[in-house]
């Protein structure tokens, strides 16, 4: 990829404030003057304090929420500003979104939830079904296919919602703290799986996390967001070469310096 190539996703001077409500102060800007871009095939990690607008940012990129000012361009196509009716959520299945809440359909079983995107896209066949079953096994949900979401643990629901996005293979995936509620072992396992998958298909991934170690271990680049109104407080190219050994990443000589400089910016 040459330096002159258009970035896949460009966010420039983005601003967002929510509609006010009677009896409250005038709405404040949640995001203001936020700019960055993402290249095709890049693994971008975003880190920022709670309430800094990370979810809001992903919602605007996925076009389920509308920006108030500035610009978001995906494949050179600008997203509408200020007009929720003109939104195209998921940009016709090109952007997958693993949301912070699992958003599983409570009346559908694990398997039905995972197959849901394929079903509504009319792509349910033996091959995609087999692929779904492979994914279910890979994230350790085998044997829970017929369970309803309320019969799964928080971490299991999270894994189910993760593979619901992976199953239809969107070229870009947004992930909002997907491994938050998992135990250390499962977490590392899934991080490794995700990296392997990314290495295979070279998807573009924007990955939001609270965990500095995770941001370094996974990303090509890490953006640090400031407290609201969110701007880019820092940008770090992760120099640690791939393939990476996640379990041993802390031992890498660059890890310590990266960790320190990122931590200094996250408040």
């Amino acid at each position, binding site marked *: 990829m040459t330096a002159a190539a258009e970035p896949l996703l460009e966010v420039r001077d983005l601003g967002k404030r929510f509609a006010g409500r009677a009896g409250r102060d005038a709405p404040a800007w949640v995001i203001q003057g936020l700019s960055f871009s993402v290249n095709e095939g890049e693994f971008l990690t975003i880190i920022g304090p709670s309430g800094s607008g990370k979810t809001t940012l992903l919602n605007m990129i*996925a076009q389920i929420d509308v920006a108030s000012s500035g610009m978001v361009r995906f494949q050179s196509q600008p997203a509408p500003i200020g007009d929720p009716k003109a939104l195209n959520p*998921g940009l016709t*299945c090109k952007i*997958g979104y693993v949301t912070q809440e699992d*958003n599983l359909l409570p009346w559908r079983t694990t398997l039905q939830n995972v197959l*849901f995107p394929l079903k*509504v896209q009319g792509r349910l066949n033996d091959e995609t079904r087999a692929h779904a079953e492979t994914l279910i096994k890979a994230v350790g949900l085998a044997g829970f296919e017929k369970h*309803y979401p309320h019969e799964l643990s928080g971490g299991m629901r999270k894994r189910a919602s993760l593979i*619901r996005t992976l199953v*239809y293979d969107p070229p870009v995936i947004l992930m909002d703290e997907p491994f938050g509620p998992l135990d250390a072992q499962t977490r590392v396992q899934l991080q490794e799986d995700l990296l392997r998958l990314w290495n295979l298909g070279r998807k573009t991934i924007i990955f939001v996390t609270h965990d500095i170690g995770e941001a370094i271990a996974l990303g090509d680049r890490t953006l640090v967001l400031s407290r609201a109104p969110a701007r880019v407080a820092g940008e770090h190219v992760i120099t640690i070469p791939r393939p990476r050994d996640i379990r041993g990443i802390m031992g890498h000589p660059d890890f310590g310096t990266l960790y320190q400089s990122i931590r200094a910016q996250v408040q």
Partner: protein
Amino acid sequence: MSTTQSALDLAEPTPVRWRQYAVTVGRILLALLLLAGWKVGADVAGPLYAADPVKVARRIIEDTASGTLLRHIYVTLRLATIGFAIGCGFGVVLPFLLRRLPRLTAAVEPYIMASVGVPKYALVPLFILWFGIDDAPKLWLVGLLVFYPVFIAVFAGIRNVDRRLINMARVVGASEAAISREVVWNSLLPFFFASLRIALPRAISAAIIAEFLVGNEGLGFLIENSRQNFDTTGVFAGVVVSTAVVLVINGVLVRLDRYFNAWRPVDRDMDI
């Protein structure tokens, strides 16, 4: 046995089957008590004002054997079913259409809500005036009485749908029709069933009342006609049969509700 062991034994749930039996036995006793009360009350009131359970049972058996009772039940059920289908259909479809038209909804909502307050039974004379004395005025009454609870529940249900689920479905490429079918419909099923608990018995009652006023068949006609002939046993038999019909329909409804909402934790673990 060590103390920890006995503590564990105590923690084991004791069998609770006798409690279930206790409920059943209690229910039977209560039914017998009510029947006895009915019998005593009927004897005190005299045959002009009340019929005792034995006479009523005998009458029901006789009328069933002759086939007239089944005919009346059929006529009433047919009326209630068609009226219900119309009212329920509009009650479900209209909120789905309004979902897509928020401005129209805001405009018409106060009028719809105000029309809830119109006493529908008071409109029957008008319906007769407008639609004649065949099925039409009766269907209007049943349909309207069914429409309101269903419409209000489905309307509220649609407002309650989790936006995040709709967004998720949009992102993965679901069409608006697929979202209505999968996300919206399933979210409001509990609301819909709650409204049916009101609407179905209402459909039967409305059909019976409509038959008091118009026509010469049906359970309503049976009751009213018996009253005019001073046949109190016939009135009581009609009321008992009507109640039985409503109970059967409710039973079917509860089953359907359990089936469609089987995924819910509450419906399985609680016996309502």
